[in-house]
Every structure is written in structure tokens, then in C-alpha cells.
């Protein structure tokens, strides 16, 4: 049986990497992927605690997170495509003006 804290440590590392992706990368798509990574590390914590407490609620929450992630990706990627069409770039630093 792997202790819960091992999973927590792993998800902390994954989360930190996700944060690094958001803060350091400029490619909007990779930034997006980093966000997904963070969501995933959170999911891992949910499932680990779900096992620790023997309750399924954590898994349900993961299910909802996945749904939200799917919705988020659909809209987010649509936005990126739209931005790319007008700017020919997906560098987030290029999208610093309110004017399109």
C-alpha cells in the first residue's frame, strides 16, 4: 500500500511544474497544457484522499473536474484559434492589448 503522502508529494511536484509552465512559457497552447497538468495533479490528490477516507466523493469530484476541463479546453482552444487568425501568433506576450 503506497501511503497517501507519497501521492501528495508527487502531485505537489506536478503542480509546481504546471505553475512553472504558466509562468515561464509564452506559447499559449503550452500554457494551456500546463493548466491541465495542474488540474491533473489536483485530481490525483482527490483520488488519493478518496482512498484514504474510503469515500467515493473525491472520485466524483475528479469526474466533475474532468468535465470542466473538457469544457474549458473546448472554449480555450477556440479562443486561441480565433486569436491566431487575427494575430498570426499564439505568443501570450503578443496579446497584451485590449484592442484586437
Amino acid at each position, binding site marked *: *500500500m*503506497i*501511503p497517501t*503522502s507519497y*501521492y*501528495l*508529494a*508527487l502531485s505537489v*511536484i*506536478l*503542480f*509546481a*511544474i504546471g505553475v*512553472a509552465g504558466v*509562468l*515561464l512559457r*509564452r*506559447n499559449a*497552447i*503550452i500554457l494551456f*497544457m*500546463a493548466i*491541465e*497538468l495542474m488540474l*491533473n495533479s489536483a*485530481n*490525483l490528490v482527490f*483520488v*488519493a484522499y*478518496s*482512498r*484514504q*477516507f*474510503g469515500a*467515493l*466523493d473525491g*472520485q*466524483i469530484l475528479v*469526474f*466533475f473536474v*474532468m468535465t*470542466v*476541463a*473538457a*469544457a*474549458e*479546453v*473546448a*472554449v480555450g*482552444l*477556440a479562443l486561441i*484559434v*480565433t486569436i491566431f*487568425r*487575427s494575430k*498570426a*501568433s*499564439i*505568443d501570450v506576450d*503578443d496579446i497584451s492589448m485590449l484592442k484586437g
Partner: protein
Amino acid sequence: MLPNIPELVIFLVLAVIAVAAALGMLASSNAIYSALFLVVNFGVVATFYLLLGAPFIAMAQVTVYAGAIMVLFLFVIMLLGAEKMKQTSHNLLWQKPLSIVLIVLLLSISFYVVLGQGVSVGSDLMQNASGYGSPSAIGTLLFQKYLFPFEATSILLLAAMVGAVVLTGVRRQRRRIRKSRRL
């Protein structure tokens, strides 16, 4: 109670793969590789779910993340031809060092909390009970206790669908293309 050796080995190997894949996602300059590294990471996380007694979530992880979300990413990257981003001038000088300092701080605080918590496995009792994490158990919980969030989620998905269609709709596309011939 410490885990037995084979289990620990499996866990450590998988964890190393997960972290390596995540780092690969972070570091690779090609967005396609980033996406593929992330897929590997998700696959490993799905395996963790299996180990944690959540086969349904594991399968959903593979289907939703690996099968749908990441394919969408790949699709967009290829569609835009944006796998290699041109580097433009960089004027956020203090962003990088400050970020690294903050990430290190976050890591240290989190580790302090997580490792200070001690080693616990939780109750084997519930987990070993038949049906824990099975689709029917999840379904029962989902359609009884969490019915309202579930329905709300369905509306969210519908909204996302409409949003995506509207954002990239055909009419808009044509006008944009006519306006800028850059594509």
C-alpha cells in the same frame, strides 16, 4: 506501516516517469512534443488511479484527457502550424527569476506541509469492500447525491459547445480571412 518493496518500486518508477514527462512538457520547444509528453503524464496518472482503486476514473482519464482533450490540442497545433513558436523580443526581465523563487517557495511550503503530515494509508476496510470505485458505485453517488452538480455540468458542456462553435463559426471565419490574408 511502510509499503512492500515491489509496490514501492512500481510507484517510484511511475512517479519518475510522470515527473520526467511533466518536465519534458515544460522544456520541449516543440509544442507537439509537449503535448505528447503530457499524454504520457496523463497515462501514468491513469495508472496511479488504477493503483488507488479508481478504475472508472482511470478509464475516464484516458478517454477524456488522452483521447479527447490532448487530441484536440494536437489538432489545433497542427491546424495552426504553431508547433514552433517564433521568439519575439522579450521584455519581461524580472518575470523569470521571480517565478523561480516563487515556485521554490511553493514547493518548500507544500513539502513541509505534506511530509509533516506523516505517513498514512487510510482504511483498507472500505477500499477492499467489493464495488469500491466501480462504475455502479460511482453512478449511484453521481445520480443521487450529486445529481444537481451533474445536471449543472451538462449545461456547462452545452455552453462550452455553443461557445466553441460561435467563436470559430464559419461566417466569422470567412470575414476574417477576407480581411487579413495572412493565413
